[in-house]
Every structure is written in structure tokens, then in C-alpha cells.
């Protein structure tokens, strides 16, 4: 009986876990190479809109998942190129791309959504059956473990970390900083693209304007709170997934104690956690040191600097 209940809990939380974890994993990968990933929410929202639009024309969830992931991955490559080849502020370009992403998302998907409603099109998303959900769950964890091995056991991982800590030193050691960053951001954004696709394909199953906005930031917060570590991210994603899944249960529990929180607070809970949990993690000195960001994160890497 207990196993059955536990199983149900896992299944119900899995889809949420999957889209949170994959995006945070992608974010971690990008930021480990030193790029401050402020475009994440725009990419996320765009990914959701993209997969929706594609789904209406290409009726296969897996195919749309792959195409969207690839396209978003290319967006990452663009960001890597701009921030590394040109002395551009990471934050500035990230924010700008975020807004373009929001605009493009509405632009692309809104007309399609009207069409869907008018013609009562049935979207071929993934069925929420245990087999499918579990497959993605296991895949995500496997991807996470591979990411861990890649980052901490291989030369490529050492190169990515070197570029994030000290790109000048990495360059002096013989690394092509641009190449490494392109690899890291491509992989990272492919993950973000797949997360946003699964957000729709596995969870919401439908689209409305603004869908996905904010979830990129939640994944960003997860990545931050886990020190951008692939394995620790699993734990943090579970915490957030629980919060999102069981928020309404929490509401009921609190009513039992005489505290009534409205639906609005319930909606706000994951966002509040996204501010609160990084706060807690950063406030504890041991965690703060272990989870410290790469030293050169967000700093402009440009070789022609003055010397004194």
C-alpha cells in the first residue's frame, strides 16, 4: 500500500520535476562557462510557444520536442558568440533577448491559439500515463548524471569550468574560449528548450498568452540554490516540484490551523521560494562557499585590458 502511494506521489510530481530540473541543468551548464544567463525566461517562454506552434502543424510530440530543443539551442549559440566575441554586458544582452523572446512568443503562438480554439484542434501532446512520465523522469536523471560526469571528470568539463573561473588563464593554457562556450551554451539551451517543450507537452497541454513566463526564473533560482551542481540540482528541483504540486494541499492544511491563504498566494509560492531558498543557501557560510558562482560569471572577457 505504501509503495503504491509513494509511486503515485512520484508520478504526480514527475512532470513538474522534469521541466524544472532540465531547465536548471541547462542553466547550470551555461553559467559554468561564465555566461550570466539572464535570457533564460525569454528562451523558456519562446520554447513553450514554439513547441505549441509546431505541434499544430507537425502532429508528433517527440519531433516537436527535438526541433524546439534544437532551435532554442541555436539561440544559446548566438548568446555565446555575442558575449564572447564582443565586449558586451551579459546582463544587458540577456535581458534584451528576454524581451524579444516574450514578444516573439506571443507573436507566433497567439494566432495559432485562435486557430486551435476555432477549429477545436486536438493537440497531440504526451499522454500523462505512468510509462511516459517515468521514461522522462529516468531520462532526466540520466542526463543529469552524465552532465555531472562530463563536468567533473572529463577534459571538456575542466575546460568549461576553467572558462567560467578564469577565461584569460584558460586562454593562456590553450583553450579556445569561444569554442568551449558555444559547446556549453548549445548543450545548455538544448536542455532549456526541451524543458520548456515538456512544460507544455507533459504538463499544461495547452497554451495561453504568457505561458511559461516566470518558470525560467524559477529554474534559474534552482540552479543558483544548488551551486550549479547537476546532482544537487536534483534535490532542489524535487523541493520546488513538491511545492508546486502540493501547494493546494498546503492550503488545505493551513486552513485546518486557521490560516487561510488565497489562491493567489498559492500561485505566488514557488516565486517566493525562488527568492527565499537562494537567500537561505547564501546565508549559510559553508553552503555559500561550496555553491559560489564561477569567479568570472557575468564578467566581460576581453583581452585588451590595461595593465598596472
Amino acid at each position: 500500500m505504501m509503495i503504491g502511494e509513494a509511486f503515485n506521489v512520484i508520478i504526480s510530481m514527475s512532470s513538474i520535476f522534469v521541466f524544472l530540473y532540465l531547465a536548471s541543468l541547462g542553466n547550470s551548464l551555461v553559467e559554468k562557462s561564465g555566461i550570466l544567463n539572464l535570457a533564460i525566461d525569454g528562451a523558456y517562454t519562446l520554447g513553450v510557444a514554439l513547441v505549441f506552434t509546431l505541434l499544430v502543424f507537425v502532429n508528433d510530440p517527440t519531433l516537436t520536442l527535438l526541433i524546439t530543443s534544437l532551435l532554442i539551442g541555436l539561440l544559446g549559440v548566438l548568446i555565446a558568440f555575442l558575449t564572447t566575441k564582443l565586449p558586451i554586458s551579459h546582463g544587458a544582452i540577456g535581458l534584451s533577448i528576454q524581451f524579444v523572446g516574450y514578444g516573439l512568443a506571443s507573436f507566433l503562438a497567439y494566432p495559432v491559439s485562435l486557430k486551435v480554439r476555432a477549429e477545436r484542434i486536438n493537440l497531440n501532446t504526451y499522454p500523462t500515463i505512468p510509462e511516459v512520465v517515468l521514461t522522462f523522469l529516468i531520462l532526466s536523471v540520466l542526463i543529469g548524471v552524465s552532465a555531472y560526469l562530463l563536468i567533473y571528470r572529463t577534459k571538456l568539463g575542466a575546460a568549461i569550468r576553467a572558462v567560467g573561473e578564469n577565461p584569460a588563464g584558460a586562454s593562456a593554457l590553450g583553450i579556445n574560449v569561444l569554442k568551449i562556450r558555444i559547446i556549453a551554451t548549445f548543450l545548455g539551451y538544448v536542455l532549456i528548450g526541451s524543458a520548456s517543450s515538456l512544460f507544455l507537452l507533459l504538463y499544461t497541454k495547452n497554451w495561453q498568452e504568457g505561458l511559461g513566463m516566470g518558470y525560467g526564473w524559477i529554474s534559474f533560482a534552482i540552479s543558483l540554490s544548488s551551486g550549479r551542481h547537476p546532482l544537487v540540482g536534483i534535490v532542489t528541483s524535487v523541493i520546488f516540484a513538491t511545492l508546486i504540486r502540493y501547494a493546494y494541499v498546503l492550503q488545505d492544511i493551513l486552513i485546518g490551523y486557521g490560516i487561510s491563504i488565497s489562491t493567489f498566494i498559492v500561485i505566488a509560492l514557488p516565486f517566493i521560494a525562488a527568492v527565499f531558498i537562494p537567500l537561505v543557501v547564501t546565508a549559510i557560510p559553508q553552503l555559500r562557499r561550496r555553491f559560489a558562482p564561477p569567479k568570472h560569471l557575468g564578467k566581460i572577457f576581453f583581452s585588451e585590458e590595461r595593465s598596472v
Partner: protein
Amino acid sequence: MRLIVVKRVRTSNLYYVGIPALSILAGLALSTLIFASIGVPPDLFISEILAGFQSPQTLRYFALLLILGVALTMSFRASIWNIGAEGQMIWGMIAGGYIALFVAAQSMYVSPSELSNYANMPGVEIIDASPVKPVISILLMDPSLGKLLMVLFGMLAGGLWALIPAVLKAYLDIDEVASTLILNYVAYQLFNHLVSYNLRGLSVQARQFFRTDRMNSALLFNLIPGTSVTVQEVLMAIIFFVSIILMYRYTAVGLRLKIIGSNPQLLRSVGVDERRYVLLAMFLSGMLAGAAGVSILANPGIGKLEKIANVVSPPTMNLGYTAILVSWLSMLDLRFIPIYAYIVASLFQGSSLLQSEINLLFPELSLTGAALTYIPIGSILVVYVILRIFTEYSVRIMR
């Protein structure tokens, strides 16, 4: 053949003017192309955008963007990215609304029979003339004092909300872009909660929908005739603009706020606690945003607080994000803010004119307000960020 980017030996002032101008043109050109791809005729796009420059509505956005532009520039100059102006404005609206509805005036039920007595009583206004449970609003203080309190409390609320990410940044070095942005979403929902429960109105409309009562119209700001902008908004814009410029130029605090943007460690090493200046910069920024929020609320066209249905179109009209454009195009130089506030306001108004034209002429094209604002803003921003480097760097071709 390779492209090398090299730091300039001499920085050219020509670029300080040319780059923002070029960014606007290029960004608009890009947007025209994007919209043309689904069938929006480019000449319609351009003519509506240009119409924005002459529309009387634009003045309103101009005043708001001026205030917000100064607010954001203050924090950006301190190297703190305040992307939370939306949330700070929301809190300004909440605080201002609270004062307007419960402190400076108060709504109450009266019996239907007495309703006519209140029709002409000074300081009393009929909010809801429903036959069952009519509602009146009674002024509890001098309306000028009431308006002043609204603004002051709005500024305080905005400033305090901004302090949260400020403390996180100053003492824990938590990235402020993420925290300010996420707090916007929290603010929207808290707003909804407060409006639906604590601030909920008494009138029938308020009961039925999730909103407050209408404010007592004595507390509304006064429209400048022929426009949609109020006297108070314009006054606030001028006062904030001038006083902040004076602060930067003539006070030690202002100088430190400037320097913390380029080198916080310098402040630390000369014995100034730079964390306090982080807090100050954000607090000031939030205060001004809060004031902008109050102006939005107290505009006669609004006068009440309503639940936000979709975070894509909040009552703050995403001006908190649009203002980023104003601030950046001004190259963080306060003197240029009025110019770019006007230009961006015109673009903003232009895009809403465009939307109504499209709905009229091309109903089959479905373009939302979000697409029409974010795409031009985003395009201009992206072009600007890239072109910006040319003020300090040049590109050379090496064989």
C-alpha cells in the same frame, strides 16, 4: 581574414548621440520586417508609430517614463539592475489605494432611503447608486493632504519593496536581476490577494468582480485639459528630475552613488560602507517607481484597483520594463532622459494606435499588445546593446 575588436585610443562623442538614434531606427526597421512577415503593411506600421509622436495620449506616458527613467537610471548608475520597477509601482498603487480608500476617505453603506440626502453634501460622493445597498464615499481630510499622503505612502511602499532585493544583493551578493524580476510576479499575486480580500470594495461591481471601490474623485489627480496626463504627474516628473540631478552634482552622497557603479571596492577602501549605498540606490529607485504607481492609480481614467487577469497585461502596462529602454538609450546620462522618455513614449503610444488600426483593418491578423510592445522594445534593446560597444571599441580587419 579575421575580425578583431580593439579598444579605441580615443572615445568619440559622436557615438554618444548616434548610437541611440541608430539603435532606434534599426530596431524599428527590424520590427517592421517581423510584422511585415505576417502581413502588416510596413507603411501602416510606420505611419501609426509616427502618429504616436503627435498623439496627446503620449504626454501621459512621457511623464511616467520620465519618472521611471530617472528611477531606473539611479539604480543602473550604481550598477544595480532594478528590473523590479513593475512590482515597486504595484506597491505604490496598493499603498496609494489604501490611503485613498481607507484613510483619506472612506466608503460605507447607506440605506436606500437616505441616498438622496447625500447627493449634494460637500465631501461626500455617491459611489454606487444601486437600489439595494448604495455606497457613498466620505472625505476624511483635505483632499490636497490626502493626495500628498497617497504619494508619500506610495513612495515608501515602493522603496521598501525595492529594499528586499537590495539587502539580498548588498549582504549576500544575490543577483538582483533574478530577485527583482521574480518579486514582480510575487507583487502581482499579492496585489491580487489584497484587492480581492483586504481592499475589496463595497459596491455591487466590486463585489461581483475582484476589485476595490472607485476612489473619491476629490482625491483623483487633475487632468490637464485636452490630454490624458495630470498636473501632479507633470509636477512630480519635474521635481524628481531636477532634485536628482542636483543631488548627483553637489552632494557627497550623490558622488558616491555615482562611483559605486564603477568601483564599489574603491568606496570600501576609502572607508565608505558601499552596502549602504546599494540600499540607498535601490530605495530611491523604488520610491520613484512607487510614485509612478500612485500616478497611474490616481489618474481619472483609472481611480480603482482591479485584479490582474494575466500577468502579461498588468495595470502598470509593463512600463517598468519599457523604462529600461529609456534609461539605456540615455546612456545613463540624466540629461538625456527627457528626450528618450518622449521618444519611447511615442513608440509606446504608436504601438497601441497600431493595434487598434490592425484590429479594425485586418481582423484576421491576431496581434496582442504584448507582441506589439515587446518586439519593438526588445529589438531596439538588442541592437543598442550591440552598437553600444562602438563607443569604446572599433572593429578592424586583419589579413
